[in-house]
């Protein structure tokens, strides 16, 4: 995390606002919540979320976390749907370039802080990196019990029968667990956690990841964390083990068979091709000479 001095030393890029937009008192409050979140993996720490100049639901939680940990020497990468060039990622990256003046990058391994919506990069992360997730609904039990008062109690008691029953009902009805994204996980054998709406394809990357993973939910005013090298288990049953999405095809651009693929509709006659959702991963493979065209 950045030192306080870093923030003060940096020139104010936008007049009238502090380094990285938030005032230092707010950052301190958020850092305290982050410390608590890291100390209790998977526990949703309430924090006094601020109004941000971007709308709720568009990454205000992630932005507040990023703003609080960012120092002048950091290099920031922002992705949405795995890509650096989606409109919201462009907007958030521009926000920090304007308010913090930090270096930005699209290359996963160059970034010290990566803010993400809906994906974990394909390139493995290191213990020198922090991954900040934008979280719409932090409560994994929300769809089973809408009331905060109740869900807090269920977490406190470790009473997760509801969730098990819900997974079982999927199997009874569909012959498999039908959750595809925001697939619930158990952190370090304790709290059940919503990994944010990443596809379940990314869930295995949560497990024992060397990077610090921070989750910010601005509208819902919650922060939680998965410390480096922490066990994260996707919920399943012995006879119905957790499984990820598979494609019969490779990326049409780089030929990758190990990445999450986006489906691109190419004409109105049902034509479609599949390309990597992680644009940096795809670009790097193509630069290295891989091609999907030959396959």
């Amino acid at each position, binding site marked *: 995390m950045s030192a306080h001095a870093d923030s003060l030393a940096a020139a104010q890029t936008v007049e009238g606002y502090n380094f990285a937009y938030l*005032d230092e008192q707010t950052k301190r409050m958020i850092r305290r919540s982050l410390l608590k979140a890291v100390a209790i993996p998977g526990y949703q720490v309430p924090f006094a979320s601020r*109004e941000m100049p971007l709308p709720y*639901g568009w990454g205000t939680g992630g932005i507040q976390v990023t703003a609080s940990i960012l120092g002048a020497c950091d290099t920031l990468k922002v992705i949405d*749907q795995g890509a650096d060039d989606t409109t919201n990622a462009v907007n958030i990256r521009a926000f920090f370039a304007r308010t913090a003046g930090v270096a930005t990058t699209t290359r996963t391994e160059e970034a010290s802080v990566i803010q993400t919506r*809906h994906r974990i990069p394909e390139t493995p992360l290191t213990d020198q990196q922090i991954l900040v997730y934008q979280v719409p609904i932090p409560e994994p039990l929300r769809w089973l019990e809408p009331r905060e008062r109740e869900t807090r109690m269920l977490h406190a008691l470790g009473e997760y029968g509801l969730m098990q029953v819900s997974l079982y009902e999927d199997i009874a009805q569909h012959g498999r667990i039908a959750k595809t994204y925001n697939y619930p996980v158990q952190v370090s054998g304790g709290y059940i956690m919503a990994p944010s709406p990443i596809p379940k394809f990314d869930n295995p990357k949560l497990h024992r990841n060397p990077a610090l993973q921070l989750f910010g939910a601005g509208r819902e005013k919650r922060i939680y964390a998965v410390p480096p090298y922490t066990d994260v288990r996707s919920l399943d049953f012995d006879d119905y083990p957790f499984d990820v999405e598979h494609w019969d095809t490779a990326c049409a651009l780089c030929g990758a068979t190990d990445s999450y693929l986006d*489906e691109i509709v190419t004409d109105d006659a049902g034509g479609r091709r599949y390309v990597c959702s992680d644009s940096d991963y795809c670009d790097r493979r193509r630069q290295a000479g891989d091609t999907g065209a030959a396959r």
Partner: protein
Amino acid sequence: MYVAVKGGAEAIANSLQLLAQTRRGDPQAADLGVAQIREQLGLAVDRVMAEGALYDRELAALALKQACGDVQEAVFLLRAYRTTLPRFGYARAVDTQAMAVRRRISATYKDLPGGQVLGPSFDYTQRLLDFQLLADGEAPAAPEDAEDPVAPTMPGVLQHLDRDGLIEPSPADDATETPADVTRAPVTYPAGRDTWLQMLARGDEGYLLALAYSTQRGYGNAHPFAGEIRLGEVAVGFVPEELGFEVEIAEVTLTECQMINQFQGSEAAPPQFTRGYGLTFGHNERKAMSMALVDRALRSRELGEQLVAPAQDQEFVLAHSDNVEASGFVQHLKLPHYVDFQSELVMLRELRRRFHESRYTREAAE
């Protein structure tokens, strides 16, 4: 060949440019001044101040101009500005009894000390379009002064009931206790009344109106009377630590509504009237009345009433009252969801494949 489906910085820049152009509209029409909005669209300004939770007529008018008149967008702009302001302390509770009243009406008494002061209101208009306003409007003349000038301060209506014990006493004015601050601490449920009154004061007017309306239509057990509605100016006092005494730092316009509601009584309390309270920045009676009705509905639990209606459900009412939160989250559906959607497609295709396979197997067996 593969076409870029993901947006980019250039597209965003162009969109912003188009927005700026659209905001200005036809340059043949005169540019709208912020002062004109402040003075002539005053009720819109009041609403933006109330829901934006910042008393500043100038900035609220600016926000309305910047937002092309979209009230919720203007509220959002004001909130995003407000959040960056340093907090140097809390004002003393304002004394609405000492309000310089411009309008004060009661629906429970025909006449009362201080009288019914109608003030400026749409209530007594016929809703006919005034085509004269299409032409340049001349400044209308002020009405003649009343024979009896409005009293400088006016006692509240409810104190007449208070004296006889017919209405529950107002909660003690405990100035030593710092009230909750929903902008500085996350709300936890169950929330206290100080918390929910703040949230309702910032809450969306349309949402509160609908909830209040629902309590009148049988979803809840409201039997309300508008005990008093008052509009006017009150002084805001502040005690700077270094001075140690109160100084007046501002004068704000407020609308206050005291709603009187029936209460059947319980084992602990005799039958008596109960209170619902509404207070907003500026002139906003619809909001103040709605807030008072919803406040009373939220007190159902404390009063031992049956909880049966949406308006009585604290978490439901409060968690969805903020239009900056609601508008943001509803509209975030415009953001790309390709990844999650792809995940659903993979699952759906697999489920459909299994469905058809199993049907084929069944049919083959028959």
